[in-house]
Structures are given as C-alpha cells and as structure tokens.
C-alpha cells in the first residue's frame, strides 16, 4: 500500500530537516491526510511520491512555524519522557545536525538530493526553483557542511 511504503520515508526526510521525530511524524500524517482527501486526483499524477514530498517540504516551510509555536510546550514535555529521534550512528547524527544549521533552502536541497536521491532537475521541480539555483545551493551547502564538520570539500558533481 502506498501509504505504508512511503510514510516512513517521508518521516525520515522531515526528521533529517527538523531533528524531531515527533514533529516529523505529525507533519507526515498531516501530509498524508491532505493526500487522502484528494487521492482521486493525486493518484492520477505522474509522480505521487514527488507530490507527497513537495507537500511535506512546503508544510515544513509555511506550516511549521505556527505549528511549532503551538506545540512546543507539549512537545518538550513529551520529549523529556521519550526519545524524540530516529536512532543513528553518532557521525551520521552529527552530519544531519549540521544540515539543520544550514539555511532552509540549502537544507532542503541537500535532503532531497541525497536522502531522496533526486537529480538536480527533480529537486528543482520539487522546490519550484531553477536548476541553476539548485546547483548553486548544493555547492554552497556542501562547502558549509565540510567547513562545519572539518571534512574535505566535495569531489562529486551534482547530477
């Protein structure tokens, strides 16, 4: 089933960008609820997977601020009692932590390109930006991450 297959992936993407499993799951559920309400149309799209990710990312941008303001107190209370993260090895967790310090567009570009394995063109389509902008954001994002983590700069080139 589409939902069962895609839901954990969307939660992972949002977790990479937000660092909170609780908030990532809430946003993912909201995203799938939007899809559920209009599924007749969305299932007929060329790529429903991309649509889901686009909505999830956009929710992260527009909805998140108001949502977090409302939920922060409750989330903090819950987070004290539960481990509010997807468990990763320390170096991977450190890298995603660094990604979250990037400007939002750079973080989104990095997440879609690496986590979702999207090409530059696919990232550009998902975020509604020009491919050149995406290439530049990838370049700057990688450079900042390398500086933050004390790693070599990228040797690979965006596809």
């Amino acid at each position, binding site marked *: *089933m589409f939902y069962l297959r895609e839901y954990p992936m969307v939660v992972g993407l949002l977790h990479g960008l937000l660092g909170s*499993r609780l908030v990532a799951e809430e946003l993912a559920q909201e995203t799938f609820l939007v899809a559920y309400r209009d599924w007749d149309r969305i299932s007929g799209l060329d790529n429903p997977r991309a649509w889901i990710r686009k909505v999830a990312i956009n929710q992260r941008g527009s909805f998140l601020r108001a949502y977090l303001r409302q939920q922060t107190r409750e989330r903090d209370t819950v987070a004290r009692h539960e481990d509010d993260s*997807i468990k*990763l090895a320390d170096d991977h967790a450190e890298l995603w932590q660094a990604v979250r310090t990037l400007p939002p567009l750079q973080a989104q570009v990095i997440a879609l390109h*690496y986590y979702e394995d999207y090409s530059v063109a696919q990232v550009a389509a998902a975020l509604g930006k020009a491919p050149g902008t995406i290439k530049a954001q990838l370049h700057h994002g990688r450079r900042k991450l390398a500086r933050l983590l004390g790693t*070599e700069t990228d*040797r690979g080139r965006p596809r």
Partner: protein
Amino acid sequence: VSIDDRLRAASRALRESSIAQVDAATPLREIVLHPVQLVRRGPTTVLSDPPDQPQEPPMPLAPSPPSVARWRRAPQRVALAVNLLLVLALGIVIGIAATYRQEAASTASTVPIPATSTVVATPPLLLTSPEVPEACLDAAELADEVIARLNRNQRDNRLFLALRDYTIASQNCRRAASP
C-alpha cells in the same frame, strides 16, 4: 572521506533507520479507529496504489456520516410529542369527569335530618355513584386505542380514524361535562 560520501552514507543510514524504526501502521490504525477527528469531509475513500503500481485490496478508512439516522429519528420525536399531548388530554378528561362526579354527589347528598334525631350529628353521606358521561368514557377508550397504535408505530388510516373519533368524543365529553 569527502563530504559527498558522508552525505550519501548518512542519507542511506537515515533511510534504513526510518524504515526500521518508524511504524506506519500506528497512525493508520488511529485514522481507522478515529475517522471523525481526521476525516473532515468527503465520502469514504482509500489511499490505494497509483494506477501504474501493483494494486492491493483497499482498506476503507472511514464510514459515511450518519446524517440519515438523524432524519429517521424525527418521526419518533413527533410520536413522543403526540403521546404526551394525548396523555395530557386524557388527564383533562378524567379531571373534568371527576369534577362532574363530585358536583353530582354534593347535590345528591343533602340528606334530611329527622326532627326526632338526637343531638349527635351524623356526617353527610357521600354518594359514589359513577355519573361519568358516556362520551367521556368513549373518549378515554379511544385515547387508549390511539396511544396503543402510536406505541406500535401503526401510522395508517386506522390511526387517523381513531384520532378523529377521539377528537369528536373528547369534544362531546367536554360538552356533556360542562354545567
């Protein structure tokens, strides 16, 4: 290790951990168990696979809203209101009949005291002859019949006729009972 390699490795790890640690079935169960909170409009639908992917049996997520049941309850409320009105009317009929009987008793109970009687006063005798007008008895019987039909939910021509007869009998009763 380049940043590119680290990003790829970290992304792969996050993907695998998400699939392993995130339970998609739990929120789905919540949607199935509490559809009213989450599904705010529209008919029942399912998140099945898109047409180009293999199909699996769909799972219904929400029942349709129970608006029909609300409309079905309306006649029951009307029946209840009619029942209450009939009970009220029956009470009035019985009250009028009782008043009439009491008045009849008081006029008939003036028993003359013999002149040679002793000083001891005897209490006035109360006559209890049932002087209820025939029309009131008919009205009471017809009211019983109407209530019985309403309780059995028999809303047909016989109910209409019984109601009509009851109304006429009730009016006759009132007329016969009034001084």
